[in-house]
């Protein structure tokens, strides 16, 4: 397999960044990591995952959909879309890589969302295999192997070298673009690292979490469960879980009068928010119980019902560590589990 010494990783980043915009996870002063536009000398974070997910690259928190010019009774629609430039996101974990295929199912089904597709077409996702999964990880529950991540190209580290392999043409093009820095390498040590990681995966506290009780055919059974009251009783109704979630994709559309015209924006929204379903003449989900239930039913029942059984969760564990009251999909699954 092709490899580059970890010491020379900076050279690889420099070479990539010379041609296209490169984003890598890097550490913040508070210890958390986030994706940043690469600048020479920037260090790749050693953290398992970024605080915010990687969905921003394709579905940003806020984006301009269109502009309007209003003059008297006339309206002019201005298409503000621009062809995206090519970019590379490096170091995406297997969970986040899978989240893109989940977002694809929503945004690339007819009618295709051209804003999302534009970024997807121009973005190359280079993933990074995990070697140190943590207690909040449960990607295995959703059939994800963090030692064999998806993405256009995948990377592995054995502690000394970074190995890289293409998963498709786009990934191959990426490798070709830096091939002068790569050489053939022996994967014996890497195989050991992978085996060790797999052993740890089996020992994770959530290793046995199962999706067996969930899916599209369990709709009414779970919807009518008495457990929701207890599960949602201390929910603050904030949007933390939604906004750190790599698969949550609900959005709002909102216009602003800039004084020189109208800008129409799309921005992340949360089904946990009290105004999410509010209409001029009422609200179909008036209680936090209903809103809380909607979020988890969507991931565990409604989404699989519409997507051949695929769940709307990738087990990244962000909501587990970020929910202010530590209520999360794992606790919901365990409570609703049919034993």
């Amino acid at each position: 397999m092709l490899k580059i010494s970890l010491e020379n990783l900076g050279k690889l980043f420099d070479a990539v960044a010379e041609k296209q915009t490169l984003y890598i996870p890097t550490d913040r002063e508070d210890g958390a990591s986030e994706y940043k536009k690469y600048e020479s000398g920037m260090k790749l974070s050693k953290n398992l995952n970024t605080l915010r997910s990687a969905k921003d690259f394709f579905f940003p928190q806020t984006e301009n959909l269109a502009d309007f010019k209003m003059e008297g009774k006339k309206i002019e629609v201005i298409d503000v879309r621009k062809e995206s430039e090519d970019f590379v996101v490096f170091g995406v974990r297997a969970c986040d890589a899978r989240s893109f295929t989940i977002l694809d199912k929503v945004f690339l089904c007819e009618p295709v969302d051209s804003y999302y597709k534009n970024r997807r077409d121009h973005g190359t996702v280079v993933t990074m295999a995990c070697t140190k999964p943590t207690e909040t990880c449960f990607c295995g529950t959703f059939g994800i192997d963090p030692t064999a991540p998806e993405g256009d190209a995948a990377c592995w580290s054995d502690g000394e070298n970074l190995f890289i392999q293409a998963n498709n043409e786009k990934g191959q093009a990426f490798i070709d673009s830096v091939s002068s820095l790569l050489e053939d390498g022996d994967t014996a040590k890497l195989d050991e690292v992978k085996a060790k990681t797999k052993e740890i995966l089996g020992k994770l506290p959530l290793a046995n979490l199962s999706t067996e009780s969930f899916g599209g055919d369990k709709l009414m059974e779970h919807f009518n469960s008495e457990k929701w009251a207890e599960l949602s009783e201390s929910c603050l109704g904030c949007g933390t879980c939604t906004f750190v979630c790599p698969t949550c994709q609900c959005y709002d559309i909102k216009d602003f009068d800039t004084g020189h015209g109208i800008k129409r924006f799309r921005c992340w929204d949360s089904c946990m928010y009290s105004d999410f379903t509010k209409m001029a003449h009422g609200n179909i989900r008036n209680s936090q119980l209903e809103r809380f239930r909607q979020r988890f039913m969507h991931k565990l029942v409604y989404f699989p019902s519409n997507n051949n059984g695929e769940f709307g969760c990738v087990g990244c564990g962000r909501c587990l560590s970020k929910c202010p009251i530590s209520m999360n999909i794992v606790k919901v699954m365990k409570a609703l589990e049919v034993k």
Partner: protein
Amino acid sequence: MNTNDTLIPRIGVVTDIRTDTPDVKTFRVNAIQADGTVGGKVFEHMPGQCAMLSIPGVGEGMFSITSSPTNKEFMEFSIKKCGCLTSWLHAMEVGQQITIRGPYGNHFPVETDLKGKDLLFIAGGIGLAPLRSVINYVRDNRANYGDVQIIYGSRSKDDLVDYQEILDEWMNDDGVEVNLTIDREQEGWDGHVGFVPNYVKELNPSLSKTVLICGPPIMIKFTLAGLKELGFTETQVYTTMELRMKCAVGKCGRCNIGDKYVCKDGPVFRFDQLDELPDEY
């Protein structure tokens, strides 16, 4: 970018405004043709489908297309004033441009399940708006359908939407029976007085009819119960729903109920299909 995106709307011109009731106006919308002239429709649709109308800076909302697809000259929207956007629309003058995108959602199965059937339309208040599209489609394709009965009720005579069209056209059609009712006695009204659900039971329509119903949730609830008492089954009753929508293409998540998106999988549902959904509408 040269691909179209459904979220980028087109322009429609309001070419006629009719005041139907104290709080309902019907707006006629035409397209701007390539040569700059105003005329024709912005897009084609099927009865029951919706469009997103917007005044940029005020808001965007989903509205049922009230006119029939058989009308080749224009589209119409009957809109009740109930919020920020609808208030703005009500204040418009002829010639005002609006943005429009669509058509969205499914439609009443006029070319399949409803074909050849005797049809019973039950509407309350502004609920006539989505059904008017079907009624006029059926009237224009008369040979394809059996008897048509329309039971329509409102708070008062002044609140009956499209009253003039009902009197001048629908009531004069062969094979179309129109039963109007208002909630309370009113001077100058010698027709039926009473709520729609009770009136339906009184009229005791034939069980062979396929029913299309639209109105306030409480009216739908009691009418459906009454129909069941009469012996109708849920598989022969259709309705159309209204929920908060933003994208209208099943992506923004707002109108999601169970595994359905009302904007995409609806707004038209048969009652047996609604039974399979959580009770959140």
